[in-house]
C-alpha cells in the first residue's frame, strides 16, 4: 500500500502533531512511514506544509501531482498546495467557508473556524477536528478510527481523552457536510 498525505496550514495550527499521529498509526499497523515536518521560521505564523508517506518510499518529500490526500487547516494554504494532489483520485479536506472557490479536485469542505467561534470545539484542536473529518469522508484513508485513537493515546495519554472527543464530534459533524 502506498498513500501520501500533504498537511497544509499556518504555523501554530498543529500540522506537526498530525504528522506524528499518522506516523504512529502507520507503525502500529506495521507499515513503513516517512514524513517531514516544518520547524523554524514556519512557527511564526507563516505557511506550513508537512508530508506523510505511508508505504515503501525512499524520499521524505512529496512531489506535484502525487498526494492522495491534502488536509488543509486553512483554505488559502490548501489552494497554495493544490498542485501536490493527484489529479484523478486525490481528495482535499479543507477548513474553509462558503467563499472557497470551486476547484477540479474532490473537495470536502467544512467551516471549522465558525464552529470554533461558536465554541463547538476548542480552536487548539483544529488539527484533530480536521483529522476526524478525514476519517469520516475519505474512503481511501488507510487508517480506521480505532487506529487513530490508539495513535493519539500513544502520543500523549493525558490529552488523549479531549482529542478523541473532538475526533468523534468531527465525525458526527461530517455527516452534515
Amino acid at each position, binding site marked *: 500500500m502506498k498513500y501520501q498525505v500533504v498537511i497544509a496550514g*499556518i*504555523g501554530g495550527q498543529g500540522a506537526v502533531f498530525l*504528522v*506524528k499521529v499518522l*506516523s*504512529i498509526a*502507520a*507503525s502500529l499497523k506495521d507499515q*513503513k*512511514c*516517512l*514524513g*517531514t*515536518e*516544518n*520547524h*523554524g*521560521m*514556519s*512557527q*511564526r*505564523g*507563516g*505557511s506550513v506544509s508537512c508530508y506523510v508517506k505511508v508505504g515503501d*518510499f*525512499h*524520499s*521524505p*518529500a512529496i*512531489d*506535484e*501531482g*502525487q498526494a492522495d490526500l491534502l488536509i488543509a487547516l486553512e483554505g*488559502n*494554504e490548501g*489552494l*497554495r498546495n*493544490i*498542485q*501536490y*494532489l493527484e*489529479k484523478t483520485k486525490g481528495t482535499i479536506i479543507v477548513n474553509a467557508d462558503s467563499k472557497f*472557490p470551486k*476547484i477540479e479536485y474532490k473537495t470536502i469542505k467544512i467551516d471549522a*473556524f465558525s464552529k*470554533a*467561534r461558536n465554541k463547538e470545539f476548542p*480552536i487548539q484542536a483544529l488539527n484533530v477536528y480536521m483529522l476526524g473529518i478525514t476519517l469520516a469522508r475519505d474512503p481511501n484513508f488507510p487508517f480506521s478510527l480505532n487506529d487513530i485513537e490508539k495513535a493519539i493515546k500513544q502520543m500523549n495519554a493525558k490529552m488523549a481523552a479531549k482529542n478523541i472527543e473532538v475526533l468523534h464530534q468531527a465525525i458526527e459533524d461530517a455527516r452534515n457536510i
Partner: protein
Amino acid sequence: MKDILMGNDAIALALIHANVDMISGYPGTPSSEILGNFQKFKDKFGVDAYAQWATNEKVGFEVAYAGAIAGRTTCATMKQVGLNVASDALMSASYIGLKGAMLLIVADDPGFHSSQTEQDSRSFAKFAKIPVLDPATPDEAYNMVKLGIEISKKFETVTMLRPVMRVCHAREICEVDEKLDFNPQKGEFKREIKRWAAVPPAGRFRQGLEQFERIEAIKEYNWNELIEPKIKKLQGAKTLCLTSGTGNGYVIEALEEMKIEADVLKLDMPYPLPKEKIEALFVNYEQVIVFEETYPCIEEQLSSPKLHGKLTNDVHKIDEFTKDKVLAAFSNVGLIEKNQFYKSAKYADELPVRPPNLCPGCPHRDVYYSVMKVFKKKKSIYPSDIGCYTLGLNQGAIDTVLCMGGSISMASGFSIADPSKTVVATLGDSTFMHSGVSPLINAVYQNHKFVLLILDNSTTAMTGRQKTPERINPSKIDIKKIVEGCGVECHEYEYTPNVDKTIDFMKFLKTKYENATGPVVAVIREFCILDKERAPEKLPQVFAEVDEDKCVECDICTTLYKCPPMNYNENHKIEIDPFLCIGCSACLDDVCPTDAFIKVEK
C-alpha cells in the same frame, strides 16, 4: 527495536548509543533539536554526560575538540552557517587530529528554508580534509552517527555527519538498539607538545603530510567498507546514478515509479572518494549522472567524459531536489524523453502570501515600532542581525541583515561612511553573546557613534527557546555588566506592553545620542511570548477589538505595527482575529491614530 523518530531524535539517541559523553554546540535550524534531545535522553536514561549549549559554534567546537584530544568521545552540533564561525578551529584541528573521537554534526538547509545560504558542508569537509557522511533518512542517520564515531576513532580525525533539513526534520520508523550500554571513555590528557601545539612551519608541515596520508587511508576504507560491498548489486544497466544523502531517495523513487532502467550507487561518504576505483567502474556504463545536494562535491572529485551533473548543466544547481528535477536531468542526458509526470498546475489566482511574522504580543514589535517613530526612516540606517527580531523586516524597521553579530560592526561602518544619518542597530541577547562583544569593543575604542539596542528576552527564541548564558547563570552573567566592561554606559529599559513608554525610552536615547561621542547602548529587557516561565505574568490579558466607525483604513497598523491578528475585513475595516490575539494590550495605546482599537469588555 523499532521506534518512530524524527531525524534529530535519531541522531541524539545514536550519540548516546555510541557512548558520546561530551556534546556542545550552538542552536541553528535545522540542527537545534540534536543537543536538546541529547539532554532529554541523558536525563531520561540517567547517563553522566556533559551536554551544554556554547556561546557560539567555535566555542562549542573547541570544547568538544579538547575533549577528544583528551581521549573522550565527543560531538559538536551546529547548522551550516555556524560552521563558518567554527571553521578557524576546524581547519587546524584537521591537521592536528585527536586521540578519542569527535563527530562534528553540521545540518544543511538546501532550499533556504531557514538559512541565509545554501552552502554545502560536504564541500567544507573536503576543504578542511576531513571525512564526511551524508545520511538520506533518520534511520540511516542513526547508523551513520555510530559509523562516524568509529571512523573518527580509527583515523584519529574529526569526522563530519552532514544531515540536511529533510533528514533532521523527517520522521521515520527506525531500527535502534534495544539496550543502553553506556560506557564512555575516561578522559586523560597526555602531554605531546609536538602534536597538540605544533607550530609552523616545520610542525604543521609534518602534520600536513600526515593529513594527506590519512585522507589516502580513509579513501581505501571508503572503498573497502562502504562502496565495494554495493558494487555486486549493480544490475549492469547503461546508466549509472551516483547519489549522496537525500538525493538517493528522489532518484530511486523516480526510477521505480517511471520504470526507468539505471543503476544506483549511493556514496555514503562523499569525501574522500577513491577516485580511480570509482572511475574504473565507468567503463561498463554509457553515462554517469551525479545527484547530490547542494554543491557538486562528488562531481568535483571525479573526472570522465561520461560524467554528468551540475558542472555540465545537466542537474539543477540551486534549491532542493524534487523528482521532477531528477527527470529533467534524465532527459538532459538523453536517458528519457522530456517528461512532465511530476508537474501539476498551481492554483491559478493570486493567493495572499503569508510570510513569517513576529508572534502576536512579541515585545520586539513594539521596539521596532518605537524606533521608527523616534529615529525617522529618512534620517536613519537600521542594521539588524540574526534571530526572531529579523522579522522586524515586515515593519520596514531593518535595512541590513548579514550574519551573526554583523549588526554592530556594520553600524560602525555605516556611521563612518554616512555620518549624516543616525545608525540604530538591533540584535538579540543570544546573538550578542555569540559574536557581539568584540565588535562592541571595536566601536567603543574607536568612538563610533551609533545607537545599539540589545533586545534581551533571555532565550534563543527562533530555534526553539534554548536558554541563554545570562538566563542559566544570572548572578554571574549580565548583559549590562558586559557592556559596561566593554567601556560604555548601558541604559536599561524594562519592557511593558505600553507603546507610549517604549517610545519615551527611544526619545531618551535620542537625546543621549545627540550629545554622544561614541556608541549609545541600551539593553531592553523583554520576554518571549512562547516562554512559559516568563510570559504569563507579563501579559495583562487585555484583548483588543476594533471600533469600526473609527477605523479610517489608514494602513498604519498593517504596515508599521503588523500584529498578525489585524486584517481588513469585507467592509474594509480592520478586524482583530480573536483566535490569534493573545491579549497583550499594546495596540490600545499609540498604534491607531484614530484610537479604533478598543478593549474587549468581557
